[in-house]
């Protein structure tokens, strides 16, 4: 490669392009065309992989012409379904989500820029299975389930069990994630998501921490505790021992510190270009403690407040 050509911006290579109108058709296209195909949702991971990482799909199946895959709906039983093609920006700004699960909105608001969030979809983000994905820990803290549709019908798996490793999920190549569901929660649920990265925006999480628990109105005890860590293991990780240490207890600063220490021990971080494993572990401890305490105080009202109370 000459120096000149190295300066030219990368471009995508030609591929066959399909826009099926139904899930069955989409799934069939993958089976019939064989290996080398990719589903396209918002494209904010796929197109970048094609430009930067030399990914050359043989064909692309765009899911955006399939009706019913996007939008946020409250069901009759009080559960909330989020279509896989719902954009991060919709999750960030949805009146329903901002009211019921402000920390889930927060986690979506941490992704890229508004331009990216207008395109990036929650389903694409889950299917891409980046360990640092911001929304995954928040959704797992809400016990979300993932609906997957393929040739052999539909199945539902807890999102916690959806991820298998970086870029790896339980889905086979012709399966499509169609919907995420959050079961009905009580009015005592509180939560917080903290993304720790040196830059306030346009950065990937060094560490992400989502916490959720039911805070007893009178006895102030924490029940159904969820502590989920991002970017410190091959998949989003529930810190179960830390959860157990808080379960049924009244949260104090001392206890938050102790629980956070356990979470840090449960994390399995690696050292990479962003951070050393030791630093990540130390940040899990600091951020878990703050997340637990912040959740009890209530949601931040602005991104500035969100930033300030991380530190």
């Amino acid at each position, binding site marked *: 490669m000459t120096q000149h050509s190295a300066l030219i*911006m*990368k*471009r*995508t*290579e*030609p*591929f*066959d*392009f399909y*826009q099926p109108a139904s899930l069955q058709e989409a799934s069939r296209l993958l089976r019939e065309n064989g290996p080398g195909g990719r589903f*396209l949702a918002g*494209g*904010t991971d796929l*197109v*970048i992989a094609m*430009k*930067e990482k030399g990914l050359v799909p043989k064909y*692309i199946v*765009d899911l*955006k012409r399939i009706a019913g895959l996007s939008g946020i709906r409250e069901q009759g039983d009080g559960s909330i379904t989020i279509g896989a093609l719902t954009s991060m*920006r919709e999750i960030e700004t949805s009146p329903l989500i901002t009211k019921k699960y402000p920390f889930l909105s927060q986690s979506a608001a941490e992704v*890229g*820029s*508004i*331009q*990216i969030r*207008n*395109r990036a979809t929650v389903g694409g983000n889950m299917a891409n299975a980046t360990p640092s994905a911001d929304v995954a820990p928040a959704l797992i803290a809400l016990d979300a389930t993932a609906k997957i549709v393929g040739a052999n019908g539909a199945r539902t798996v807890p999102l916690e069990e959806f991820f298998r490793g970086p870029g790896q999920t339980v889905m086979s190549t012709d399966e499509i994630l169609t919907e995420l569901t959050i079961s009905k929660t009580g009015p005592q649920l509180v939560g917080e998501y903290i993304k720790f990265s040196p830059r*306030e*925006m*346009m950065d990937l999480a060094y560490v992400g921490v989502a916490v959720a628990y039911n805070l007893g109105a009178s006895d102030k005890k924490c029940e159904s505790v969820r502590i989920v860590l991002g970017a410190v293991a091959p998949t989003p990780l529930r810190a179960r021992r830390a959860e157990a240490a808080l379960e049924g207890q009244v949260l104090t600063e001392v206890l938050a510190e102790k629980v956070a220490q356990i979470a840090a021990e449960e994390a399995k971080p690696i050292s990479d270009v962003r951070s050393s494993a030791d630093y990540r572990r130390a940040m899990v401890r600091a951020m878990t403690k703050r997340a637990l305490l912040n959740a009890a105080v209530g949601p931040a009202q*602005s*991104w*500035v407040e969100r930033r300030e109370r991380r530190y």
Partner: protein
Amino acid sequence: MNQRIRFTLNGRSVTREVATHRLLLDLLRDEIGVTGTKEGCGTGDCGACTVFLNGKPVNSCLVLSGELDGAEIVTIEGLKIGPELHPIQKTFLQDGGAQCGYCTPGMLMMSKALLDENPNPSEEEIRFALAGNLCRCTGYAKIVQAVQDAAAIMRSKTVP
């Protein structure tokens, strides 16, 4: 693979044969010849290529032409109101909101998106909205000022 698609660009209907893997940015600049939209990073970090796709600001460097059938696209060329510059364009000029000017089309599109949603943004809200638009001259103070001044003008009169 080629596909015949139809979309609107700055209010005008366009029908063309496109290569489905072509990026919206390249379709605009190299094929249609509408060059106000710029390429900075090519990977969705800098915002120089921001256009409106179906009413929402997006990075045109990450949109495939194959996705565009039926789409509505507005570029910086569509920001003017008749022969008049949009108030955002006027205040960027007035306040020195552009230095080298390369990020400016993206900054203007994103500022419009912000002011359409929030007619009276605080400085923090402006910085949040423009987080995905990088100015390598680092002229952010004047950009923020220009958005605030445009907001004041737009609040004082009705602008489409």
